[in-house]
Structure formats: C-alpha cells, structure tokens
C-alpha cells in the first residue's frame, strides 16, 4: 500500500508571479524560526519564551530599536555592495576585508593626522568618508584586476584578502597607533564622531541615550543610488546583461573587463564606507574586531533581499535584530543558527520560483 498522494514537480512555463519571491522569502524566515524553535526545544529550552525575550530585547524599546538600526547600518551598505556585484555574477565575498580597509583609511585622517584636528567637523567627516570609500574601492580593485586580466577566481581572492585586511589592521593598532599597548587606537577626537541622536538630548530629552548615528542616512542614500544605477542607468543595464549572459554582453560591444573592475570597486567602496561609519559612529576608534562578521552577513542580506536594493534595508534590520538579541541570550550562537538556517532556506526556496509543486492523488494502479 503506497501513500495515496505524491508530489508532482513541473517547471514553470509562464512568468513567475510578482508576489511569489516575497512570499518565499518571508516563508523562509518563518520556517527558519520554526526549525530553530525545534532545536531550542530539543536542548530543553522553551522556544516561545526565548522568542518572546528575543523580541523584547530587540524591539522592546526605542533604545533597543535604535541599537538594531545601528547594527543594521553596516549591513545595509555591505548588502548593497554585494547586490551590485552579485547582479553581475561577481561573487564578492570580501566585504569583510573591504570593510576593515575602509575603517583603516578613514581612521588615518585623524591618526596621522591628514588635516589639522581643529578643522570644522563636516570637513573632517567628509574627508573620512571619502577615505573610507577609497580604501574599500582600492581593496576591491585588487581582486577585480586579477579577475579581469588573469581570470583569477574572485571567490578565492576576496576570501583570502579578508584575512590580509584583518592582520593589516592589527599591525597598525598593535604597533604604531596603539593606545598605551592595548590593541586599539586612542579614542578619536569628538570632531571625528558622526552625529548621533543622543547629541540632541539637551533640546529633545526623548533622544537621550539613543545611539542612532548619521551612518544610517548613508545607507538610505546608497540604497537609492544603487537602485537608480541598476534600474535606470546605462551602466546598470550593462551590469545586468553581463550578469545574465557575458557572451551576449561581449557580442553587444560591452567592455566586460572594465565592468568587472568598476563593479568590484563600487562593491568595495560601499563596504569601505560601512567601515568608516562604524569607526566614526559606534566605536570612535580603530580596534580589533570592529566587525561582527558584517562582511559575511552582508552576503546573506543581499541574497535574502533577492538583489533588490530597497529590500536590503528591512532585511538588514531583521539581521540587526538577530545580532542585538544574540547579545542578550545564551548561547549567543542561537542568532547565528537562525541566520544560517535563513540563508539555507532562502537559497533552497529559489526552487519554488522555477518549479511548480503540486500534491496529486496517486493514479490507480492499472489492472492488467
């Protein structure tokens, strides 16, 4: 006796409905929470109470929510950088390294110092942002050039360069710019701090203790910019065409090598800006472990947002919430468990976009 129903899988012949990608993404997130809940239950915890606590820890107050957005800021920028690269089928997983390089270059402005520290705050910060962008872009340029000229696999180069960047950073914070032997630089002068809402606490008491800083505005501007590039510009058309069929793009007269380098630089620049925003908006100095795997979470963010620049923002906030909640509960690995499960499910759910699954009644065995 066989089970009377079976799954039938057909390739989708007509266009995928517009609502489906969103539905599968949301479905993937919900399912990830359910699976993680089961894991929690198996280790003897109470999943509902854990999630309740999770929710309270992340969305329970304005202060907590602001923490989430602060965590989401680098994710937005890095997620956007990954989006551009992935759109062209360049698998840049070196955002972590580009982030560190951006942070390092930005910090040089005050550490060297490149301009006198009694310059106006806007000038210092603008220069730091420019340096952050430059650092990340240069660090994206290296694998871009290697790929364009020698066809070196960018997954390997970007991944390896991550470690180089971390140790490069360590060299300077342990050595030349160390604060009394600690593995960090001295705290930056206030002139190099990104404005925070808490700065306005005197006028608006409501903002006291709110850590939200200007970096999130960078993220929103970047999202609009990337959307305009990808959806409305000539360059975006070239990126999309190369991403879908590089041979067709070459045939259409598009310079692929140039675009590989440019896209890697843009991708790196956004990660570099994230690094700048983190050192000037959050830690106010260059130190070890300024990134809690932002570079890798950014990859997941871009996938989960289905390479849509605006979707990157809410997805980053969800991941920010996971990071904040992860601080509050033990074991803190739980949020990584959920993140990993989400990525896994999102990638698998692509299957549903390409195929239709029906449940059908098994046909009666033929009587012969």
């Amino acid at each position, binding site marked *: 006796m066989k089970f009377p129903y079976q799954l039938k899988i057909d390739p989708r*012949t*007509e*266009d995928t409905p517009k609502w489906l990608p969103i539905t599968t993404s949301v479905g993937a997130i919900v399912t990830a929470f359910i699976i993680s809940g089961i894991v929690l239950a198996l280790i003897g915890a109470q999943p509902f109470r854990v999630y309740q606590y999770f929710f309270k820890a992340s969305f329970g107050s304005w202060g907590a929510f602001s923490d989430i957005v602060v965590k989401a800021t680098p994710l937005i920028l890095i997620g956007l950088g990954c989006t551009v690269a992935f759109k062209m089928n360049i698998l840049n997983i070196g955002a972590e390294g580009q982030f560190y390089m951006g942070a390092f270059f930005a910090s040089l402005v005050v550490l060297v110092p490149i301009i006198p520290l009694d310059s106006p705050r806007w000038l210092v910060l603008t220069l730091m942002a420019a340096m952050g962008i430059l650092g990340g872009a240069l660090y994206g340029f290296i694998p871009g050039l290697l790929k364009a000229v020698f066809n070196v696999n960018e997954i390997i180069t970007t991944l390896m360069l991550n470690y180089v960047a971390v140790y490069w950073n360590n060299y300077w914070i342990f050595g030349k710019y160390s604060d009394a032997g600690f593995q960090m630089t001295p705290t930056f002068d206030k002139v190099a701090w990104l404005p925070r809402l808490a700065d306005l606490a005197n006028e608006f008491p409501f903002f006291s203790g709110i850590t939200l800083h200007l970096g999130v505005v960078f993220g929103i501007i970047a999202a609009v910019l990337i959307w305009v590039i990808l959806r*409305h*510009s*000539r*360059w*975006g*058309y070239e990126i*999309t*065409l190369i991403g*879908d*069929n590089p*041979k*067709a*793009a*070459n*045939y*259409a*007269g*598009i*310079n692929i090598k140039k675009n590989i380098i440019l896209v890697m630089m843009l991708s790196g620049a956004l990660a570099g800006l994230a690094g700048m925003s983190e050192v000037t908006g959050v830690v106010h100095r260059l130190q070890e472990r300024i990134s809690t795997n932002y570079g890798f979470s950014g990859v997941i963010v871009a996938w989960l947002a289905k390479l849509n620049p605006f979707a990157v923002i809410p997805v980053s906030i969800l991941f920010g919430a996971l990071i904040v909640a992860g601080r509050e509960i033990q074991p803190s690995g739980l949020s990584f468990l959920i993140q990993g499960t989400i990525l896994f499910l999102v990638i698998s759910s692509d299957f549903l976009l390409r195929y239709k699954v029906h449940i059908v009644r098994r*046909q009666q065995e*033929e009587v*012969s």
Partner: protein
Amino acid sequence: MINQSDEYPFAVEMQDIVLRFPGVLANDHVNFTLKKGEIHALLGENGAGKSTLMNVLSGLYKPESGSIRIKGETVTFNSPKDAIAAGIGMVHQHFMLVPTLTVTQNILLGLKKPKFFMNLSHYDKKILDLQEKFGLLVDPTAKIWQLSVGEQQRVEILKMLYRGADILILDEPTAVLAPQEIDDLMATMRALVAQGKSIIFISHKLNEVQAVADRLTVLRKGLATAEGIDPQGLSRGQLAELMVGRKVIFRVEKQAKEPGQVVLEVDDLSTTNNRGLPAVRSVSFQIREGEIFGVAGIAGNGQSELVEAITGLREAVGSVRINGVEVCNCSPRKSIKNGLAHIPEDRTGVGTAPNLSLTNNTIMKNYSQSPISNGWRINYIEAHDFADSLKEDYDIQAPNVEVQARKLSGGNLQKLILAREIYGAPSLIVAMQPTRGLDVGAIEGIQRLLLEQRQRGAAILLLSEELEELLMLSDRIAVIFDGEFVGQMDADETDLNQIGMMMTGTLRSEQ
C-alpha cells in the same frame, strides 16, 4: 520484461494520447505505432507536439489519457528509468554530455557497473566493439569537448545502445549536422534498423524524411494530420501543407541587383580556435553593397572562428576593414559602430540574454543611443516602445515585451535577433546559420528578410550548412575547407555537386 525475440509486430503502439500544458493541448488523441525494424519519421513544425509525444514515450511526461504498449505489452512509465528498462533510448536535440570527461566515461555515467574501480581500458574496448557492430566510429578515449557535433551525437547514440536500447528516438538529429554528417547519420540509421533496432526520427526537414523514413506521421498543433503513411506517396508540397496547414513557397524570388561599393574587405586573415590550433588560414575576400556572399563548408572547418574574427570577438592576424576602417583585433563595439550587424550561430548562448525581458534584449545594440538613452540614463519607456514596435513589425509571437527571452520559440527568438540587428540599417550583416533548426514557415520569413536587406544595399556575409539555401540566396559563394577558401565563384556558375566536392576537399577551383 524480457525481449521475446520476434513475436511482436509493433515495437511501440501509442493510442489516443492526450496531454495538456497550461493553455495548450500538446497532444490531442494522437495515435502512433512503430513497427519492429523500421524508421518512422515524426514530422511537424516547432511546437506541433512532436517532442511532447516522445517525452511521453520516454517516461518524462505522463499522458492524461491513452495507452502505451511496448513490444505488445501495456506499460506505465513513472520515470525515464522505466522507459530505459523497456528498451527505449532518446537522443535529445541538446546533448547531455559532460565536456571534460572522455567518451567512455560519458557512456558509463549513471550505470551500476563499473562499481568502484573504473578500469577504463576494459570498457574502452567494449565500446569499440559496439562501435564496430553499428559503424559509429569515435575515439573512446577522446574528451567530449574535443569532438565535433556529429561525433558527440554518435556518443549519445552509443550511450543508448550500450544501455541496451532497441527503440531509438532521435530528436531532430540533423538540425546540428553538416550535410556530410547527415549522410553519415542516415547510413548509421539504416545500419541500425538492419540489425533489428527500431528508430523514431523526429524532423521538420521534408527531404530528409523522404530520404530515410519507411513510414511517416505528421503532427500539427497537437493533432495528427497523417498517421503512418508512406512518405514516398506524397509530394514535398503536400507534406508541407499537412505540416503547416497552408501552401508553402519553397523558393523565395531574388531580384537582380547591381552591387555597389566594397563594404567588407578581409585580407589575409588567419586565426586559431579555442585549443590554439590554426582554424582560419589566410582568407581574403570582399563583399560589396547589395551583395550576398555565401560561405559553404562542413561544420568545424573554421566558419565560427572566421565570423568571430570578422566581428571582433576573436583575436586574429591580418586585416578586416568595414567601410574602409580597420577593425581587426579591435573591440566588438568598434565594428558595431562602423556598421556591423551580427546574427550569431548560437541564439541563446550569444545572441540573447535568456533571463532578461524582450525589451532588454531588443535594446542590446542601441541602448546607448538616443532616444533610448541620452547621457547616463536609459529611458525604459522609449525602450519598451521600441521593443513593442519591433515585435509588431516582425510579428514576434510573445504575450508582451516583458516576458523573458527564453520563453520564446527558436523561430521567434531568431526574428527578434534579426529585427534588432537590421534596425538602424547596418551596412554589413554577418549571418551564421540564420535558419538552422527553424520550421519551413519561419525559414521562408528569415530568407525574405535577408533578401530585403540585400535590396536595400546591405553587404551580407551568409554562412550556412543548407547548400540549397546558400545557392538560392547568394550572389557569390566561397567554400571553406580546413580553414582555407578552396574556391570562390558566382552562384549562377556552380551547383550542389561542385560545392559538395569542394567541401570535402576533393576539388579546388583553379583560381
């Protein structure tokens, strides 16, 4: 299950097969029978339901109603595995081979034996024996990527024979072959049936069907318009009518045209193929305005490389001038700017971006020109209108211009490429195999378009393996053999026979 020798008259009997896809009735109560030891041709236009019917037979689809009997026994196939077990082997139009593995490795792929140790040389020998038995020669130790298309096809057939198939389905096997290779294939098919195999031959080429088939079934829009008839009993015109549902003109009329100035000048051009071996050797020719210059040759004699060198896609030695401007070893963009339009051999791999919309595919060549783009921005409203107008003018069958290009049939995709390339009145059109794999109706349309462009004054370089087409359309013809032009002559002063001899390298013109 076990083959009970010759007791059954029919290898395959399919009755009243019905299969529906969203919006289409792909098979509407179709009957199909295959006698043991015969070649039964299945004729029909693209989308007539031929492949669907065969996918039912090979276990990929389940029919909604109808019955299948194999060698006299009723069967239900739940998967292709069941069909293979019943002795049915399908050779798909697009080969399912792993390019980096050898012939033997590809044939063994997915089989239970060998289990762990490959012992390839033992199997190489086994496969050689099989080859000799059926006259399908190909080096078992060669890697797939080193083989020509014809040889790869032989590997596919061998794969099925090795699995013990005695009912072979060949899905448009000639669409990818050169004339010589087609003859070889037909000889192979005859050898196979002589040894007791039965063959279903899917095609939409009337002359091939008449040349090789014992019986014929014609499908049109899911309905069988002829079942198991004798292909010799009907004229080509009658067959075409059964297939298309209307009268078909086989010859498009070519008007006289006095050629104008030289547009393309190729001088002493040489280049290598992907493996670094010489592919084109010192080729020189000119094409003038209003002239179609045809290049005949068996596939793999340097045609693709020649086209790529001329269109800027491949590095080469020598000179290529379009309207007097040197474009050899420059970017494809420079050639395009100087008036090049290119209809590539590979429609889905080079000519289009399959997952992008028709709009995005139609603006591929003019996305940086006004009115679609002024400055950095692309005006997608203009782009959409542009795509719509091409769709309208060239009668491209698609629900709208926002569908993905991969949803289009081969003929419509080719129309889209042609429409895009012809737009902007290019002075040079390089067309490689523009009608390959298309059905009669679509072929006629494409040929007409090319002649219109000639009339307009475009210089056209046409590479085709359809000699009749080449003779009909071209003003001058060159024959390429082993990367060299072995002859250039006026189309009126030559014939199929002479070109055929040159293509195999047995004849060279005096010049």
